[in-house]
């Protein structure tokens, strides 16, 4: 189990190497905060794995979003993606993760955690932000001020994304797409022709490594670039041709950037777990923009983006 304080991300200091360290499923994180009546930019907990037990010393409203979980408040099962009230002394128990990988918990009120450079999110590598810059361990206490009971809200089923593998990730062309052979690009990205990739065990919050048919560099091209800024969701190809999807923990990189996961599909990256199958599919920028617009329109009424 792994629990971190996250938010929508730390922006504005990329020039000194500070990465966003954002919640990997930003929609789920914002939705959890909407359910408890908090601002979308408020912190929440991002959790991997079952076995999370929280004891409440206050009365508050709570919500769980993201990966589909089986959770109990004392002996009553709680509905995910729905506000529930917690009384003083109650215990929340997450028994099982049924679909997806990371789930999010929000509590009505203000979590007393560290705000660094405008954001509460945890930079785990450097040890700042969130809960003392660290992952939470058994026995830790987070104070919540101004907690109150919120209205009951529900995220309608139709807005809850599918998180079951195989995952389809739509991508757009990256700056170095032309470094690779046409045939191998087709085999990686073209609809109906593309190979299946598997999420490697060697993945973490910095990057998701995929294994499968390697991408082939064109003859004579350099297999790396002079380090340059990278956008979240960039698919880098190191010398061995196996893709690495960069998340929110690096500002620059020196590997070739073949593609970028569309913004509409970036939240899904939070739910890629080791040995899941992944299909990559190249779409045009116009299509990517349309998908993002559609996603935002659909979700605009829950005020998440």
């Amino acid at each position: 189990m792994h629990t971190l304080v996250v938010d929508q991300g730390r922006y504005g200091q990329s020039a000194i190497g500070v990465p966003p360290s954002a919640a990997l499923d930003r929609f789920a994180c914002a939705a959890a905060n909407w359910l408890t009546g908090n601002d979308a930019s408020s912190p929440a907990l991002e959790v991997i794995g079952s076995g999370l037990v929280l004891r409440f010393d206050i009365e508050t409203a709570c919500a769980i979003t993201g990966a589909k979980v089986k959770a109990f408040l004392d002996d009553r099962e709680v509905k995910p993606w729905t506000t529930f009230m917690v009384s003083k002394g109650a215990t929340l128990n997450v028994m099982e993760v049924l679909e997806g990988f990371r789930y999010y918990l929000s509590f009505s009120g203000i979590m007393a955690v560290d705000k660094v450079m405008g954001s509460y999110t945890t930079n785990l590598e450097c040890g700042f932000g969130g809960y003392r810059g660290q992952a939470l361990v058994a026995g830790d206490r987070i104070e919540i001020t101004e907690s109150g009971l919120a209205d009951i809200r529900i995220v309608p089923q139709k807005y809850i994304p599918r998180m079951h593998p195989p995952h389809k990730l739509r991508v757009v062309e990256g700056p170095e797409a032309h470094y690779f052979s046409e045939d191998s690009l087709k085999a990686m990205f073209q609809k109906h022709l593309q190979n299946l990739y598997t999420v490697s065990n060697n993945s973490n919050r910095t990057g998701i490594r995929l294994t499968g048919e390697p991408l082939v560099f064109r003859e004579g091209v350099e297999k790396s670039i002079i380090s340059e800024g990278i956008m979240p969701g960039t698919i880098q190809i190191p010398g061995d041709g196996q893709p690495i999807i960069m998340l929110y923990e690096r500002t620059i990189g020196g590997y070739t950037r073949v593609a970028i996961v569309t913004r509409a599909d970036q939240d899904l990256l939070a739910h890629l777990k080791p040995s899941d199958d992944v299909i990559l599919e190249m779409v045009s920028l116009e299509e990517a923009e349309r998908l993002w617009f559609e996603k935002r329109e659909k979700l605009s009424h829950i005020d998440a983006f």
Partner: protein
Amino acid sequence: MNLTRYGENGLRIKFGDTINIGTHEEVRRCYFFLKALHLPDIIDITPAFTACLIHFDTRKTSYTKLAELLSEMETDMASVAVPEPGVHEIAVRYGGVHGLDMSFVCAHCGLTEDEVVSIHTAELYTVFTVGFIPGFPYLGVLDRRLNCPRLETPRVRVPKGSVGIAQRQTGIYPFQSPGGWKIIGQTEAGLFNDKKEPYSLMQIGDKVRFIKE
């Protein structure tokens, strides 16, 4: 101006294809110019060796609009005054337990440890960019006599304060982190402070000299 698109919300301004001071000066000027504008359309700016990456807000602008705006400002950018670079002296303990790869570097370059140290401390380096982790300065240009490859398999943990070299660059690890550079020494200088501004000791364009401790 050489503008290209990078995904849905990225715009690259490219100034060259090689690492050199002239290109660096242009990147640096562009970065300080854009930063001073405080455009609400821009979420983040990442200057590096040859290009500036702009992460823009698609709720406020579009690639086309931003590209037009930047092209209109090209002349202003060329004439903007940039801040004087900071100058830093960094005390380093070289070799032994402080420089895990010093013996490799000596063997690879055919130099004694004293020679490696005297070459490394002779140069006044320029900060070409800061990243991949907070506060890590990419310093150049390293003397060609110290040109060493990166480790084939990067270390999972490089200790905080490690001073490394890779090809024609040298750098300092502000935090314990993964890393593939050859480590020749260690400094106690604080490179990053998340509590107060300036968070990073160094920024693009600063000058650095290493001193043997």
